């Protein structure tokens, strides 16, 4: 069954130069395990096609049931030189929550 991440997790994004990070938070261990399995850096990279130009790294933070994604080349050169309305990438977190994953 496909489920949108919106139903499973919450997220916050932040900027540093031309990189953005998105931390994705699970409500419990079972949901965390599902996120680890489903929300791979490759899938996140594909999800952000057209927005992110570089690689996507993923760091596991099991002690707070979180995955932290670092998106390289995510901010049109960085907040202060970006032409975008969302120059800081504040909405990248909610954009990630649009992703659908297989929940069993």
């Amino acid at each position: 069954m496909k489920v949108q991440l919106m139903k499973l997790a919450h997220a916050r994004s932040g900027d540093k130069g031309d990189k953005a990070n998105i931390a994705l938070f699970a409500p419990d261990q079972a949901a965390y395990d599902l996120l680890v399995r489903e929300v791979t850096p490759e899938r996140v990279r594909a999800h952000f096609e057209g927005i992110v130009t570089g690689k996507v790294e993923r760091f596991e933070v099991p002690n707070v049931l979180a995955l932290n994604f670092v998106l390289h080349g995510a901010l049109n050169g960085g907040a202060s030189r970006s032409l975008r309305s969302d120059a800081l990438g504040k909405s990248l977190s909610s954009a990630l929550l649009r992703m659908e994953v297989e929940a069993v």
Partner: protein
Amino acid sequence: MKSVRIAGGLGFYGDSWQPIKASIERGNVQYVASDHLAELTLAILQKDRQRDPNLGYTRDLVPMLTELLPLALPMGIKFILNAGGLNPMAAREVLLTALKKFGVKLKVGVVLGDSVLERLDELQAMGVSLAHMDTGEDIATVRRHLLFASAYLGARPLVEALDAGADIVLTGRVADAALFLAPMIHELGWQWDDWDKLAQGMVVGHLLECSGQATGGNFGGDWRSIPDLANIGYPIAEVWENGEAVITKAPGTGGRVNFDTLREQLLYEVHDPSHYLTPEVDVDMTTLHMEEIGPDQVRITGATGRPAPAMLKIVAGYEDGYMGQAIIGYAWPDALAKAYLAAQIIQQQMKRVGLKAEETLIEYMGYNSISGPLADPTHAKDLNEVYLRIAVRCADKREAAKLGRLVPPLGLSGPPFIGGAGGMIEPRGLLGIWPTLAPRAVIEEYIRVSVEEVGS
């Protein structure tokens, strides 16, 4: 066991200091640590300073302290602020003038030495490449456009100022969390190789450095569940000698401190959580525990640290052209189709007038300006309204200004429209950010700390 209570101040230049009043009046704090400098703020301050050599600090300093000091002074509360920006000595001068009005004697400390813009030749002569730390590019490509270059200092000079009795410490660029670590070290007697305690301290500082983001502001979870944001309390930390900490906020304030609001802040702007590099310690956040121990109280234990990195981070900013932009709105029916046509017309006219843009961005506000290619197209054909926003990147300001002039005639000679937004928008200077590294010793050699009693 001895402890210290520290209030989080501002999270950026432009933030509200009203919530700090509650922390002072009802938070039982000994220190307020306030972060005025986002990555870009120094560029704004450099432009101020180019206009007037007596500027270059964040001008919220005096209005903020004018309101807070009358509350804080009778309680002996001390302030640590990076409001010095690019010109801590000028910040000190305006502060002294303000203090005279209060008729009090205070010790004001100033930390200098973070700005390295004037030292770049010297650093390169010493073999520091100053290459971009992510791309490896040579700084020569941007060198003549640099507006500022500042190293992120650690807590040591701040501790020195506190040890010398400073009631107010003014700094320029320091690691944001170091503003908070300094009073912990001063009060709790931690050593510079107590890696785990330093790590706990930096985690606490990181949790507090973005004001309301730790207490339910900008909360990506169930934001409806956060009470009374209009009256939000900023975070307060109590930290004990052994490194254990509790994050809370003043009684009777809005917002919320819990596992969810704090873990969002924990990873905010963090890359590798097991190597969160700070000037004092390499922090591992993956070993820590966060536990709710009461309403709006979360205990933080178990962060671990490894020895401090050999290099300090420098962030420089350079002028990188101008952005011209224009916004014009369209209503149902076929709002998006009208905006598409307007975008085509403007692009044709950009060619006709020979507008030289290195990049053109077209957004439909109300449809995809935020989501870009991820926007859900379901309602695209039936939008109530949409605003076309068109932005160009140009080498100079005059070129960028050409865009704005193409838009007003569309009101009478384009698809049926509902008006512009924001009028003619002035082109805005764009800034590139240049992060690089330098050996600690060549930076620290230039750090100067002064503490003087002032006032009457």
